[in-house]
């Protein structure tokens, strides 16, 4: 326990978010192990990681905000600046690069008129290039809001951008996008089930599934 006194009373998480956080913390033998999923929770809550969010995470896992920020700033998938509503991440590591990711990224940038690392003025689309996202078998690959689409081509990439602009989907569901824009997959993902798909951030049940938040439905 570290004595830190907040200089002023700050806006904190709501009770329901705190409750979810403590659900997540309970899944680990040592609270500090929950720091990474909680950072996703903080991102889901405010759209990106704010100082406030990191402070809340620190409080929930018993670390100092500096320690939490050390983790958050190490990983590029934690965004500390507000990205657009749709974040297109294009892998440019070796496998993807050999199979044409530079062209895919170029197509995305061109179609969206957003350079890698930037967001359009409307705040709708952000584009970035990222290191290997573990989909080398389906290279070149991109993610949209961390939902994977494999076997990309330049045409499909342009289509994807146009679709995001026009359809403005509520939630991005990888399986659906794969169907619409993807090509060859690294392996068979199996049939899609909305109730087990864990959007909007991957792999953390307590954050809720694509059908809705976990536990009680909260507004």
């Amino acid at each position, binding site marked *: *326990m*570290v*004595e*830190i*006194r907040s*200089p*002023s*009373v700050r806006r904190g998480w709501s009770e329901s978010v705190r409750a979810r956080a403590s659900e997540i913390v309970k899944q680990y033998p040592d609270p500090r192990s929950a720091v990474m999923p909680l950072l996703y929770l903080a991102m889901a809550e405010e759209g990106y990681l704010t*100082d406030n969010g*990191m*402070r809340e995470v620190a409080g929930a896992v*018993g*670390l*100092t*905000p*500096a*320690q*939490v*920020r*050390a983790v958050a*700033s*190490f*990983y590029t998938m934690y965004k500390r600046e507000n990205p657009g509503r749709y974040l297109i991440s294009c892998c440019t590591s070796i496998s993807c690069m050999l199979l044409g990711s530079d062209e895919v990224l170029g197509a995305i940038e061109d179609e969206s008129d957003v350079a890698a690392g930037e967001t359009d003025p409307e705040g709708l689309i952000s584009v970035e290039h990222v290191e290997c996202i573990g989909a080398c078998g389906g290279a070149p690959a991109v993610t949209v809001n961390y939902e994977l689409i494999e076997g990309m081509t330049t045409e499909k990439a342009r289509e994807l951008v146009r679709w995001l602009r026009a359809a403005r989907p509520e939630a991005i569901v990888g399986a659906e996008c794969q169907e619409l824009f993807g090509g060859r997959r690294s392996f068979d993902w199996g049939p899609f089930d909305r109730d087990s798909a864990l959007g909007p951030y991957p792999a953390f049940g307590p954050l809720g599934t694509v059908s809705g938040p976990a536990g009680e439905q909260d507004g």
Partner: protein
Amino acid sequence: MAEPVTVTINRRAVSAQPGEMLIKTAQDNGVYIPRFCWHPRMNPVGMCRMCLVEIETPRGPLMVTSCTTPVSDGMTVDTTNPTVKKAQEGVLEFLLINHPLDCPVCDRAGECPLQDQTMAYGPGESRFVEEKRHFEKPIPISELVMLDRERCILCARCTRFSEEISGDPLIEFQERGNYTEVNTFPDEPFRSYFSGNTVQICPVGALTATPYRFRARPWDLTFVESTCQHCSSGDRINLQSSQNRLLRILGVDSEPTNQGWLSDKCRFGFEYVASPARLTSPLVRDSEGELREASWGEALDYAARALGEVISSSGGRAVAGLGGARGTNEDAYAFSKFLRAAVGTNSVDCQMDDGLDPRLLSGVVDRARIADLESAGSILVWGPDLKEEHPTLYLRVRRAAQELGAGLVVVHPRATGLDDRASVKVTYRPGQGGQVLSELMDGAGRMAEAREVLSKGPVVALLGRPGYGESPDLAEATAAFVRSLPDARVMPLARRGNVFGALDMGLSPALLPGRAQRGTLAAQMLADRWGELPASSGRDCRGILEGLESGGIEALVLMGADPVRDVPDGELARRALGNAGVVVAIDQFLTDSSRMADVVFPAMGFSEVEGTVTNIEGRVLKVNRLTPGPGQSRPDWAILSDLAGRMGVDLGLVSAQQISGEIEELADIYRGVNWERLDWEDRDGIVVSGDLGYVPVFSHVASVDPRPGEMALHYARTMYDDGVMMRESPSLSPLAPGCAAHLHPSDAARLGVGEGDPVDVKSASGSLRAGVVIDPSVEPGVVYVPFNQPDTPSLGSVLGVVVES
């Protein structure tokens, strides 16, 4: 200890403890391996790669970092061959890639490990022609520390220190790869009580201390080893000055006490020494009632006459002395001798009505040493928050609990710095201590776990007064109980720098030098030297103040004591001094107390006098002189000796060293403790044992409830407060937390107040107005007020206070 193994380092066979890191084995055997990140008091990380060496393996020679490679039997190591040399050059070339090489304007230049090792092991030139990385030049990361990220070599010493040692990781590596930097959270400064240690161990000039920046070059410094006097742990320090001005204090790695670390109070709390407010001339009160400068002769005559008149009309017992816990043993001895032999009184106290029974403090049977913490099975801390009052002891307890696996039970009325390492933390309402103790003794219910932890011996119990509302009997009763625990040892806590030495010199009504009690053979031997000892029993601090108020005591001699600010019931002290017929003060400053004196003598102090001190475990250590005292100031003993002379008594004191010899002669337990030994072979000090064998008495401490409408007051000290030394140290004085009333959220709601709102806190002996701090760590019904904050009146040692919005 395990069987030693044999390792061959540079073709020489040496023996080592298995598990020890190669770098340490080499160093212990005279082979220095360059390093940046490895620190003997912290866990290795292998961060900087400077310590590469080559070892033989079945698959051929292998390059390893010697700071992360444990020795094993038969290991063959080469630390100097051409491969190793090439590696060292490579590592240094890399480390210098982003280093700005701004040595000419860097404080560290001249004592910089990066500079030194580049000279010794580095390549002459760099092949790096690209742009170095740039950061804003030094940024403040706290009031005391500046960080220059361009100079940082990312060794993680500072971050490891704050996580492993001090337990407040407010700095961490941020970002990644080429962008990695040390930093704090944007609005959470590195406000650690121990931040200065990171400056001392940073191997480059990335971390610098605001109080020292640009003050001196290392080669201009003169230095001497000494002992810190801010608390009673006896931390070893290195005093450094330039042009007769104290400029810096560094921690010395002394195994029995501070192990290299210091609190920021020890490290930066020396600025008062050169304060313009220091007294430079004697002062006497003139006919208008004002203190005015006087010559030494006039002031001594004045004081001798005034004291002499009281003695001849009402006897020596009408005179009392307070103080002595801030100076050396030699000065304390002189004070004891002055009061008993020249004045004829036993009314003397070096504690300020805030401590424990002196027999318990310095004479308890089975008294613990600090080193006992290293082998403790479990530790009980029931007393002040160690982090606030005994900072380096706090680090030792923390280490025992965190690194050495001791169980830890902490009992305190609110959050303490050790809570995160405690196996069991008991929070209670002040006044309920007796109840908590009997529950702990029963070991039933909620205390079952605490008793379970404490069943693992050896047990070390650190016991003191958690706050001033609590009875001092509680610590003694707890000490009595603790004796029933397995292999238990007790360390009674008192905080003032040399309070244990002062007690050993007899600055307490019932004690005489050498922990002798009045009426014993030792006392008789003392009388042979000192002349007849006063027969009447004396009064302690509270008794003295009450005596002054009621008239039973007429004159008071203060030696480095400020009862008006330092006694919990400051108002009592103020009335007492106001009512005293004669007050003679020996002091470095005009304090709230010495301001009320009739005569004030300017005293030399820390870094100006030579002598010995005795720490919390009875370890005698040397303090040394580096700077001259201001103006006409003189050492305490010399003032007392002259004063006695004018009163017609020759105390026979000629120098501090002669007094040390006299102590050695007269105080049996100090036999063999002399300056020569302490200056040379025993710089870590000599423990004087020969305890009184005082067996703590168990008494039932009744639980006290505040009266209806009142809240229980937790009144306790903080590291930074408004004591005169802190007030006169500009770097630290702004850090005092200030007057505050900590309330449980439920009480704040009841009173209808929020964070920062003002409330009035009223006790029987004083009242103050304070801003509310919402503090869930206190129990409902409790208000915590930090003691002795700037511009704050005192509340007294009371339990109940009325809190109103």
